[in-house]
């Protein structure tokens, strides 16, 4: 009995020491200007992951986005090199001349997710698709999406 009790006490002590050394930082309790600054300084994938934490953080990310921007959401389709039957859908954010990968999905293209990205990054809702053999009639691509450009990434 004695050794196990001892062990338990040691674990508790090490945990409490850890939290005493580094208290966590309450982001929602910071001044609003600082909250917006923090989010603006994150990379787009970090902003996306933060928006998935709660409705409030999602709203915070939207608030931090500039109104008049040149953001575009581009979608690239591909196949998993190991499992050829798996379709990979990659969502990119294009800011001026930079393209940043935000998120990768396996399976179908989701128009809801695309709309979420457009809404989050204040980008137009048209689908900018990048696919070498793009076919809008493909069953994994809903036909209700407006298709503006194709194969854009291939030229870069």
């Amino acid at each position: 009995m004695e050794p196990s009790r001892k062990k338990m006490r040691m674990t508790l002590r090490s945990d409490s020491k850890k939290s005493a050394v580094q208290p966590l930082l309450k982001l929602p309790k910071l001044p609003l200007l600082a909250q917006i600054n923090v989010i603006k300084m994150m990379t787009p994938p970090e902003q996306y992951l933060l928006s998935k934490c709660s409705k409030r953080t999602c709203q915070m990310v939207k608030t931090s986005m500039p109104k008049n921007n040149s953001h575009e959401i581009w979608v690239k389709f591909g196949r998993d090199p190991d499992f050829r039957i798996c379709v990979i859908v990659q969502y990119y954010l294009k800011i001026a001349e930079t393209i940043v990968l935000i998120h990768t999905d396996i399976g179908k293209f989701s128009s809801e997710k695309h709309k979420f990205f457009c809404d989050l990054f204040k980008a137009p809702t048209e689908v900018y698709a990048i696919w070498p053999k793009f076919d809008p009639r493909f069953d994994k691509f809903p036909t209700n999406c407006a298709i503006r450009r194709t194969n854009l990434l291939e030229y870069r």
Partner: protein
Amino acid sequence: MSVENAPVVDVDEAAIPVEKKMYYRFESNDKKEFRVSELAIQQSETLNRLVEAMGYTSEDVENKPAIAIENIDGKTLKLVFQWCEHHKGEAIPVDDGSVPKIVEIPEFDAKLMDIDNGLLFKLIWAADYLNIVQLLNVSCKKVANMAQGKTPAQLRRVYLLPSDEEDEAAKRAAQEAQDPRAREVEEEFEERKRQGGNSFF
């Protein structure tokens, strides 16, 4: 030679030591006093406006009581003024509105902010209150860096983000605290419904 007849020579004003280098005295909410140079104060828009409005002379600075800063403690204010003294004379950055906002943390600032998150939290509040743009930028950048490589679950822990349910509960509690009669009316309504009453009024 009289002063009127002295030759006029163009000189670099920055090279001349400033004759009236004023040091203002500030006091934190825990009664710790700090002496800060006039140039360092210019980094803080709030303090700069305050001392301008006060119009202190060098005698006033020595004889009058220290300017009290009620919202900030000594430990935080020491960091703030250390930062201001190190960056005195530097241009105040203007936000160009770009996202992601590019900010680099200089070595001095990184060492200054090698502090626990509790103090970093107070430092951000102080930078916001005193309107020190670049200090706010670098301290926010340090907070933003904490998100690197984290999942949403880890972000919730790092930034102590409440879940949707917790946010809803807090909102409801705040509403009830604002209007306690609303809860009474709701309870009365539920009670009447249980009793089978059709009309509330």
